[in-house]
């Protein structure tokens, strides 16, 4: 019984994590649009280093720092992919590129 209850809690948390990850991805898309209109590069490794340092510093739970960093590296990689796709879509719709 206890196991089942705990699993239900885990399922609920996973749903929350997924909602938050997708919310983060949407904001990342908005940042991609802002970068595209300001002609700023997608990948910003120094900003990413700051994020990684920050999340590891704030980690006080059971998850190891290496695991936190690895999870965030994957999140950041997906953000770059989303922003590259935003830039690509905008570039394709521009008709005057080779005039």
């Amino acid at each position, binding site marked *: 019984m206890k196991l089942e209850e705990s699993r239900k809690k885990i399922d609920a948390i996973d749903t929350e994590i997924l909602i938050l990850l997708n919310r983060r991805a949407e904001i990342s898309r908005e940042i991609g649009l802002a970068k595209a209109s300001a002609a700023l590069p997608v*990948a910003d490794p120094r900003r990413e280093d700051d994020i990684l340092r920050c999340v590891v510093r704030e980690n006080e739970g059971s998850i190891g720092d290496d695991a936190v960093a690895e999870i965030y590296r994957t999140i950041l990689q997906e953000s*770059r992919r989303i922003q*590259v796709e935003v830039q690509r879509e905008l570039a394709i719709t521009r008709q005057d590129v*080779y005039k």
Partner: protein
Amino acid sequence: MTLTAIQGVRGSYSEEATIRILGPSADILECRDFEETFAALSAKKADFAVVPVRNKIVGEIEAAVSLLQSNRMKVLDELPLRVKHVLAGCGGARFEDLQTVRSHVEALKQCRRFLTANPQLKQVIGADTASSVRRIVEEGAVANAAIGSRRAAEMYGATIILEDIADDLDNWTTFYLIGN
């Protein structure tokens, strides 16, 4: 709707050649390599293909020319395209940070002098110039750069670290528009 197969992805020189020949509304089918490009045309998945056949610095693009000869396809148009290679990297990347440079094998050959003068840059062969730029941006490491067009750098959100790095600044590639 007519579809044109190119080797590589949007932002490649083949895409630029296609747009210059067929106009900006040309629909593009991105193919992984020359074999897939010709196969798409043979199988009528695409109506046309645009492929590079000669470059001023390296001469004949053998992989494309041999497929063109063996497939006996019609050359419908020819376009000499000015090719200006840039060295693209991630945001904030400095030249001294770089350790690898990725690009299509022909583009690497066209930048031989630059690469010989910078032996610290390990050459990595990518499928095409534009996907090489895309890949280094998605990897997001300051140590990685790619050689491609300005259009590719802009399309995939890369920073231009150096411009005009080909051996000959007056660099041209001839493209063929081909059909069945």
